[in-house]
């Protein structure tokens, strides 16, 4: 600390006033400055008096008075300083001004005070406005005026002698009051602003603290939930980098969290040697979160995982990231695979002997093994019909299995609609006639000659529907219609005059292993798979199927397909 700083510190300590009011503190400091100056004047007065007396400039008669008055000034200054510092600034300032006024009365002869020293009386109101505040300006102006009047009387002059001076002083007092008041007002405003700012800072700090606490609680709760669920979860930020994982995920993909955090899905999956198709599925899933309604299956090492994704939105609904959920599907996938393999083998193994039974019965009926009589022909025909029925069931089961396994594919090509309708008519005209039914096929001429679709699958759908219609109709007709609905759709309807389906049975009609009426299961045969397969096929081709029916009047099955043409 250098000398200047030390002096500054000492001065600061000397000027310091103990008060909480900043206005009082300001005034107290000014009072202390004045008192300090007064103290210096009194000390120099004492020293000067002693020196002048020693060198003989000042006579010994005058010296004691000046010496004592200087000493008294200094003493007074110390007293007032102590009052100002430890008691009250107002009392100290009032005392200082009053003592100054008293001193002023003896500063000159009464005549000269009214004359050449008249300017002195301008100081009390100015002092008051500075040291005591604007409110003290006018009282001290009045005090000073009374003092002037008294001095005027003492000097033998009329009491109204200093009237012009007093009026001038009033003007000065007024200006002094104005400036002091302006300063006070400005300081009050400033303090108001400061107080508001302080309040604002306090409020903001509190809000921030609350938000942080809330977030910490919520984050903690969210993490606890994430940690406790069995599904693997990764959260990605908007740049596609992993920002959060749960323990289930690290176990599922056998990778520590540190290797996952900060990486993109592509980096994670390529490090796990996922094949290209699975990587593509994953990246597609994450680039369009929530687009895929069902979860996707991927092969991850030796495991099969079911993956789904969703957008992460904040409270204002703006996108902040993506969450991917992984579920271990290995066991289910294995069971599914075994089920499909089993059904596939069973169906194949069933079909071959059935084909053999059919062939032997046919050969027997055809007389390959010798001449047969009419009842033998009839019996072999029964064997063949029942074998065909069994084959139909096995075929349905095989189709259903393939469909469930997602192995059925749609092969789109250009084909002639007329051919499709004629094929179905040719295939089923005979069975319809055998039951005494009329099969009517109609093709709407407004439909284009060739359209794009999978004719084999469409034929399968139509054959199934017409077969059903024949099966459940005892008399009347089965009508097949193909027609245009609008520029983008065409329809197939199969209408029969059969038993009809009770309304309450309709919703379950397209489910596997169900039939409209359990009574007719025995009557008409079948396994209840046909309509389920039809529905699956239609949906695979982006079509829709519906049914309208009235008991004992008949049913209409309607298939609506997208109309795609070459042009």
């Amino acid at each position, binding site marked *: 600390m250098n000398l200047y700083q030390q002096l500054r510190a000492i001065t600061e300590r000397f000027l310091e006033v103990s008060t909480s009011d900043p206005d009082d503190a300001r005034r107290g400091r000014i009072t202390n400055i004045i008192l300090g100056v007064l103290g210096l004047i009194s000390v120099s007065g004492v020293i000067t008096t002693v020196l002048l007396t020693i060198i003989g400039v000042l006579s010994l008669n005058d010296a004691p008075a000046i010496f004592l008055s200087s000493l008294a000034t200094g003493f007074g200054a110390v007293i007032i300083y102590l009052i100002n510092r430890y008691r009250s600034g107002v009392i100290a300032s009032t005392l200082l001004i009053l003592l100054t006024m008293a001193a002023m009365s003896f500063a000159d002869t009464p005549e000269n005070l009214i004359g050449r020293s008249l300017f002195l009386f301008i100081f009390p109101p100015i002092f008051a406005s500075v040291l005591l505040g604007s409110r003290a300006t006018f009282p001290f102006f009045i005090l000073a005026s009374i003092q002037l009047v008294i001095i005027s009387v003492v000097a033998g002059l009329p009491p109204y002698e200093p009237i012009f001076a007093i009026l001038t002083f009033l003007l000065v007092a007024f200006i002094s009051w104005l400036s002091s008041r302006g300063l006070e007002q400005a300081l009050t405003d400033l303090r108001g602003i400061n107080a508001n700012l302080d309040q604002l800072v306090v409020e903001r700090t509190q809000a921030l603290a609350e938000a942080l606490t809330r977030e910490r609680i919520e984050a903690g709760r969210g993490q606890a939930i994430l940690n406790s669920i069995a599904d693997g979860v990764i959260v990605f930020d908007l740049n596609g980098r992993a920002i959060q994982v749960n323990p289930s995920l690290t176990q599922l993909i056998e990778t520590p969290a540190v290797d996952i955090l900060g990486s993109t899905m592509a980096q994670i999956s390529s490090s796990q040697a996922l094949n290209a198709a699975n990587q593509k599925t994953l990246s597609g899933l994450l680039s369009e979160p929530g687009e895929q309604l069902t979860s996707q299956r991927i092969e991850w090492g030796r495991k099969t995982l079911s993956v789904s994704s969703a957008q992460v939105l904040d409270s204002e609904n703006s996108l902040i990231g993506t969450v991917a959920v992984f579920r271990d599907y290995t066991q289910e996938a294995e069971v599914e695979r075994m089920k499909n393999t089993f059904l596939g083998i069973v169906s194949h193994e069933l*079909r*071959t002997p059935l*084909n053999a039974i*059919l*062939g*032997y019965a*046919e*050969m027997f009926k*055809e007389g*390959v093994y010798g001449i047969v009589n009419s009842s033998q022909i009839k019996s072999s025909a029964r064997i063949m019909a029942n074998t065909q029925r069994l084959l139909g069931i096995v075929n349905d089961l095989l189709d259903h299995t393939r469909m469930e396994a997602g192995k059925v594919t749609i092969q789109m090509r250009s084909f002639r609609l007329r051919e499709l309708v004629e094929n179905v008519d040719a295939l089923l005209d005979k069975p319809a006639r055998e039951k005494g039914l009329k099969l009517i096929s109609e093709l709407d001429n407004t439909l284009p000659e060739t359209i794009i679709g999978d004719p084999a699958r469409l034929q399968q759908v139509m054959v199934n529907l017409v077969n059903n219609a024949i099966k459940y109709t005892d008399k009347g007709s089965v009508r097949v219609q193909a027609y245009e609905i609008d520029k983008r759709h065409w329809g197939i309807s199969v209408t029969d005059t059969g038993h009809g389906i009770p309304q309450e049975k309709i919703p379950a009609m397209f489910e596997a292993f169900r039939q409209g009426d359990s009574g007719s299961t025995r009557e008409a045969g079948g396994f209840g798979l046909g309509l389920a397969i039809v529905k699956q096929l239609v949906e695979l081709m982006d079509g829709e199927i519906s049914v309208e029916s009235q008991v004992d009047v008949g049913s209409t099955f309607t298939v609506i397909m997208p109309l795609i043409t070459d042009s």
Partner: protein
Amino acid sequence: MDDLALIIEDDEDLSIIFAEAVRNAGYQVEMIRDGQSAQKRLKEANPDLIILDMHLPHVSGPDLFNQIQEDKRMKDCIVVIATADARMGDAYTTKADFVLIKPISYVQLRDLTARLKNNSEDAY
């Protein structure tokens, strides 16, 4: 000499039925029950008709089919594919002379091959 027909089919009963049908159509019939034997036999025999199952042990039906296609001696040989797989059948509709989807009826095969026999006789 009678026209020669090879029945390449691994199921015993189906090969008996197919053989019976083809024999009744007027062919001399030879039954082969596995892919390997078929491969050997096709190198020396000169059949007029082949009934080919696509699902065979040792050497697959498609491999045998390619062998037949590549062998110039058999360019006039008629190949009838007999398969239970409809998609497999679809794939061969343009390549093979005929495709039959199992179950295959005795009458169906007998009538088809009889027609083929008559056509070949008409050609002479």
